[in-house]
C-alpha cells in the first residue's frame, strides 16, 4: 500500500460499547460519555468534507449500526443553527443508543440472564470490517480506514478466537484499531493486542468526571493516517505475547505444543488433554497409526476441541 497523502479521506468506524451493567459501575455517566463522543465525531466530520463515518453500538446481546441510519428513520426537519451532517449523525447516534438500551433491558428482564459485563466486541469488529470492505470496493478514491473501539466491559473468553480473526483481517487490510478504554476495571488484554497487532493506539482514560474523555479522544485518536506518520502517539508500550500453559496456567518461556490442536503445555505429556491425541514417543519407533485409527483430531471430537479451546486458549495470551 502506498503512503497516505494529506488530501486523502478517512473512514472512521466508531464502536460504542454500551453495556448497561458496565456503565452502571463507571464513575463517568454514559450520557456524559456519549456527549463527549459526539463532539469528537463532529470534530472528525468537520476536519474534511470527504471524511466518512460509521457508528456501531454493541450491548451484551446485540450489535446495531446506528449511523448511517436506514433511510427515512430520521425526520427531514431542518435546524439552521446546526451543520446538516452533524445533525444527522447526532440524532442517529442518540436515538439509536436509546432504542438499543431499551430493547436490551427488555430482553434482560425477559430472559432473566445473569448480569454480565461482556459486550459483543468481536461481532462489532466483524461488522466494522464488513463496512470497511464494502466502502473500499465501492469507491476508487484513496480512503484510509480505522476503527475506534470505546470499550467499557470486560473481555469475554469465548470471544477470543473470533476477535483474533478480526484482528488479523484488520492487519491484512491495513485497518488501524484504536482502543479507548473508557470504563470498567483494569485493562482489556484482548483489545491491547488488537491495537498492538494492527498498529493502532490503546489508551485508558481515567474518567472520573469532567471532560477528560473528550480531551483524550481529540488528542489521541483524531489524527488520520497521514498525520500519524509525523506524530509520536502515546501509549505504545509493547504487550507481552508470551503464552500461558493450558495445564497449570503458568506463563511459559519454552512450552510443548500439540501438533494437532495447538494446545500449549508446560511439560511433556503422553496424551493431549484438549483433543485426546496420543503422542508418538520419542526414542522409540514412530509408527504411523492405521487409517482412521486412534487419531482423535478428526470429526468426532472436533466439537469438544472447539469448546475446550474457546475457554482454554483465552489464557494462552494472558500474562
Amino acid at each position, binding site marked *: 500500500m502506498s503512503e497516505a497523502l494529506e488530501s486523502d479521506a478517512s473512514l472512521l468506524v466508531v464502536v460504542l460499547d454500551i453495556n448497561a451493567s458496565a456503565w452502571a459501575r463507571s464513575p463517568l455517566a454514559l450520557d456524559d460519555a456519549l456527549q463527549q463522543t459526539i463532539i469528537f465525531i463532529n470534530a472528525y466530520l468537520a476536519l474534511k468534507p470527504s471524511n466518512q463515518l460509521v457508528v456501531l453500538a454493541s450491548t451484551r446481546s446485540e450489535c446495531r449500526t446506528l449511523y448511517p441510519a436506514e433511510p427515512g428513520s430520521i425526520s427531514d426537519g431542518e435546524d439552521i443553527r446546526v451543520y446538516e451532517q452533524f445533525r444527522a449523525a447526532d440524532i442517529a447516534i442518540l436515538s439509536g443508543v436509546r432504542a438499543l438500551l431499551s430493547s436490551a433491558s427488555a430482553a434482560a428482564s425477559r430472559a432473566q440472564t445473569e448480569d454480565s459485563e461482556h459486550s459483543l466486541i468481536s461481532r462489532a469488529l466483524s461488522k466494522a470490517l464488513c463496512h470497511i470492505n464494502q466502502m473500499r470496493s465501492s469507491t476508487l478514491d484513496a480512503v484510509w480506514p480505522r476503527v475506534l473501539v470505546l470499550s467499557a466491559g470486560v473481555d469475554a473468553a469465548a470471544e477470543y478466537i473470533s476477535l483474533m480473526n478480526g484482528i488479523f483481517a484488520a492487519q491484512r487490510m491495513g485497518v488501524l484499531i484504536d482502543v479507548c478504554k473508557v470504563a470498567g476495571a483494569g485493562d482489556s488484554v484482548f483489545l491491547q493486542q488488537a491495537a498492538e497487532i494492527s498498529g493502532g493506539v490503546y489508551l485508558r482514560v481515567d474518567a472520573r468526571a469532567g471532560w477528560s474523555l473528550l480531551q483524550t479522544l481529540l488528542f489521541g485518536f483524531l489524527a488520520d493516517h497521514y498525520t500519524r506518520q509525523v506524530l509520536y502517539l502515546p501509549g505504545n508500550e509493547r504487550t507481552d505475547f508470551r*503464552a500461558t500453559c493450558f495445564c497449570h496456567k503458568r506463563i511459559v*518461556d*519454552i512450552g510443548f505444543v500439540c501438533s494437532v490442536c495447538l494446545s500449549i503445555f508446560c511439560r511433556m505429556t503422553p496424551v493431549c488433554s484438549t483433543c485426546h491425541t496420543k503422542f508418538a514417543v520419542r526414542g522409540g519407533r514412530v509408527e504411523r497409526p492405521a487409517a482412521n485409527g486412534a487419531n482423535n483430531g478428526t470429526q468426532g471430537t472436533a466439537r469438544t476441541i472447539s469448546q475446550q479451546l474457546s475457554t482454554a486458549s483465552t489464557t494462552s495470551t494472558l500474562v
Partner: protein
Amino acid sequence: MAGNSNKGRSNAEPAEDDDAYIDIDDTGPEGLKGADGGYTWEEEYKRSWDVIQEDASGSIQSSITGISSQHQRKRRLRDTSVVQRGIMRHMVVVLDQSDVMSTRDIHPTRIQASTAALEHFIGEFFDQNPISQLAMVATKDGLAERLSELSGNPRDHTDVLRNAALAGEPSLQNALELGMHTLRAAPVHGEREIVCVMGSLTTCDPGDIEQTLAALKAAGVRVSMVHLAAEVHVFRRICRETGGAFAVAADGEGLREALMECVPPPAVEGGRAVAEMVQMGFAAKASGKVPTPCACHHELGFTGFLCPRCGAKVCTLPTECDVCGLALVEAPHLARSYRHLFPEENFVERPEGEGAERACFGCGRGGAGFGCPRCGEGFCLECDIFIHETLHNCPGCT
C-alpha cells in the same frame, strides 16, 4: 512423456484453448472430442468480446459485473468439514528456470509472471500458515539447485526469486529428489509438500522417474503442480498418485488461482498423521541502547527477540533459532492457525426474492441474498466473499 503430445501447442496459438483440455483424460482421439461430438479444432472460434453486451444505456458495466460475480460465486464454495489438518507444513517450491520460461504467452514473460505469482503466494502462505516452513528450488540446465533453505521468513524466499538466469532444460526428477532430500529434515508430525511451477513440456532426467515416484509415496510427500502450457501425462500422474493437485494455467490469473489452492492447509488422511508434542519457545522482545547483530541475518538493530533457551537474538518471529534450532513463536501465531481447525460454514444462497429486500447483516447495504446456516442472518455477495476469504468469522455467530 508423450501422453498428450498433441496438446502442446505452439506459442502463437491463443491461450484460451487450455481450458477445454484440462479435464480430458488419455483415452485416445475420442477424448479430444467436444461436447457436441466434433473435434475442438472444428469448432467455431470463440470471440470473448461477444459475451459482453451493452445494456439499455449503452454501458458495459452491468455485463462485466455479471461475469465477475459469476466468477466469484465459483470461488465461494469451500471445503468446510471439520477434519484434522496439517497445520505445521513443510513445503518445497520448485520453479522451472529453463529456456522455455522466457516465452511471452503469459505476460510479460512466463518467468516474470511466475515470479510475481510466487511472491504473492509466499506472502499469502505465511500469512495463513505462520508456523510453517518453506524452501525454494530452481531447475535448469538439467540440474536442480536449492535457492533457499527451509525457513519461516518470507523475505528469505522472495529475495532469491529475482533476477533468475534462464538456461537449458528443466529436470523434474532432480528437482523432486532435491525437494525430498530437503524435506527429510522435517519432523514426522509435519506435512511434507512439493509445489512445482513448470513451463516446459519436457524434462531431462538422469534415471527412472518411477523410482522417484515410489520414493515420494513412501516418504509421504504430496506433490502439486501448475503447468503454464499444457497437461503432461507424467506430471499429472505424479500429482495424482501422491495426493496432490495438477492444474494448467491459461494466463497469469489462472496461475495465481492455482497457487492459491495450495495455501489453505490440506486435510490429513486417516493413516498418515503422526501427532507429536512440539517444543516451542515464546521469545521475549528485547531492546537495547546499543545496536547488536541478530543471529539470523547478522544485521545490526536496536530491537529483536531473544531465544529463551540459548539467548540468541533473532529479528523476526516466527522463526527457528539459528543457534539451538528451537521454534520461536508468539501466542498470536498459534491463534492465527485455529481458524483452519474450525472453518466458517459456507453460506446458503437464498431463493430469488426471499430476503433480497432486507439489508445485509454485515455492511447494512444491498440485498441479503446469502444466509448463514448457523445464525440465520443474511449477507450480500460482497460480504460473503469477504467473510470467507479474509475475516474467517461470521458476524452473526460470534
